[in-house]
């Protein structure tokens, strides 16, 4: 065979269209950067998988996908690869599935540094290992300069839902309590600062983390765990609105209980933003019956990803609006779903 993936073949270079053309350059890129790290078992363009967990009668397969398009692709606390692994693991986990396998598909801009790809892939491998999932299949495409923003990653995840487990927002009942696992808004505020257009800097890190172990622990501790959502795009406010709508309940939030770092509050004050709508990548909100709230909190707080777990509100009979919040100041206000992204309010 002709010099397969000598390290020197790609080192220090940038991706060119040749790396996406289906020929030897593509094979070298894939071997050196991707399969050399992920080590898929099949030489064919598909993973072939078996799992005892799937053979258990009543077990269901969970399948989810997300594309990741963050700018910048590296930021304090993570990078697009870490996001792509954690985000999809979390979408499996919050649905009650045990995450098992991921696919990873890369769209790479001509000119992207190969060293950057190495770092992203290493970060994915690290996160996957920590989360107990395997990246078993993948794809790369290279597009012309200006046709994508450095690199986009789409991961899909397959997991197994054990027999009898059925988490879903529809199961939330009035009286259930809403618990978040940690501070809110860190990811959104970190990205705002990292982007640089607003020339703000802050000692913040993305909260990006996988929540599979946390979810498994809570599901074990709370037999009547109702539902969970990772509070990603649109933040806690959007997750709660969606859940309340699906369950036909209302949710009453308590502003004073919301875990927020001073820097996140500061960023929100400067830009006139509401932290409830900032994106998170390692925060989830879950609903349990009041009777299981203590068990949920104790279980979560015993894990690194749940150390700051706290009750932030509760479900009530459906009122005129899905989500309402009592401010520390005493008044109440609606926490609506936004139309689009929050824009800085400045002038």
């Amino acid at each position, binding site marked *: 065979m002709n010099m397969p993936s000598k390290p020197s073949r790609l080192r220090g270079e940038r991706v060119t269209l040749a790396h996406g053309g289906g020929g030897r350059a593509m094979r070298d890129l894939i071997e050196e950067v991707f399969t050399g790290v992920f080590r898929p078992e099949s030489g064919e363009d598909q993973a072939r998988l078996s799992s005892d967990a799937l053979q258990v009668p009543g077990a269901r397969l969970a399948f989810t996908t997300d594309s990741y398009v963050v700018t910048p692709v590296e930021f304090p606390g993570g990078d697009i690869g870490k996001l792509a692994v954690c985000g999809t693991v979390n979408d499996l986990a919050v649905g009650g599935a045990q995450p098992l396998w991921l696919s990873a598909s890369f769209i790479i801009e001509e000119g992207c540094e190969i060293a950057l790809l190495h770092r992203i892939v290493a970060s994915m491998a690290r996160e996957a290992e920590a989360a107990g999932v395997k990246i078993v299949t993948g794809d790369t495409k290279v597009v012309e300069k200006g046709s994508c923003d450095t690199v986009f990653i789409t991961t899909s995840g397959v997991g197994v839902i054990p027999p009898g487990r059925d988490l879903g927002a529809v199961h939330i009942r009035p009286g259930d309590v809403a618990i978040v696992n940690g501070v809110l808004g860190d990811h959104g505020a970190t990205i705002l600062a990292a982007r640089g257009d607003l020339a703000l800097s802050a000692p913040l890190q993305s909260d990006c983390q996988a929540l599979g172990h946390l979810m498994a622990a809570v599901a074990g501790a709370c037999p009547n765990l109702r539902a969970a959502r990772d509070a990603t795009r649109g933040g806690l406010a959007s997750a709660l609105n969606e859940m309340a709508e699906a369950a036909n309940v209302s949710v009453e939030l308590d502003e004073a209980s919301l875990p927020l770092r*001073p820097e996140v*509050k*500061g960023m929100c004050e400067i830009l006139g933003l509401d932290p409830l709508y900032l994106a998170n990548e390692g925060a989830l909100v879950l609903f349990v019956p009041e009777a299981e709230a203590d068990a949920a909190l104790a279980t979560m707080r015993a894990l690194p990803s749940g150390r700051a777990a706290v009750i932030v509100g509760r479900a009530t009979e459906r009122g005129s609006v899905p989500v309402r919040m009592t401010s520390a100041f005493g008044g109440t206000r609606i926490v609506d779903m936004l139309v689009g992204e929050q824009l800085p309010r400045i*002038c």
Partner: protein
Amino acid sequence: MCLGIPGQIVEITDEARLMAMADVSGVQREVSLAPVSDRPLADLVGEWVLIHVGFAMAVIDEHEAAETLEALRGLGEAQEALEAMEQGARAFDEPVRENAQ
């Protein structure tokens, strides 16, 4: 109108252009001191200013702030005392009522 937020000047970054670093709860941003440049720049380090669209628009008057707060707290405390009195009055009343039920 227009969003303004208090921040503390931590460092002069460009004396010629009147630029300084301001800190808002740990978030830092370079701001122009031009509107408050009628006093020596060096004196502004450590001061709290009102920041709007990247300009330090006013130096916050600590003394005035304290006075305003004092008045507000006074109202709060007066109300607390009043409520305590009312509560006392009720407490005095209530056993009687409860007995009456």
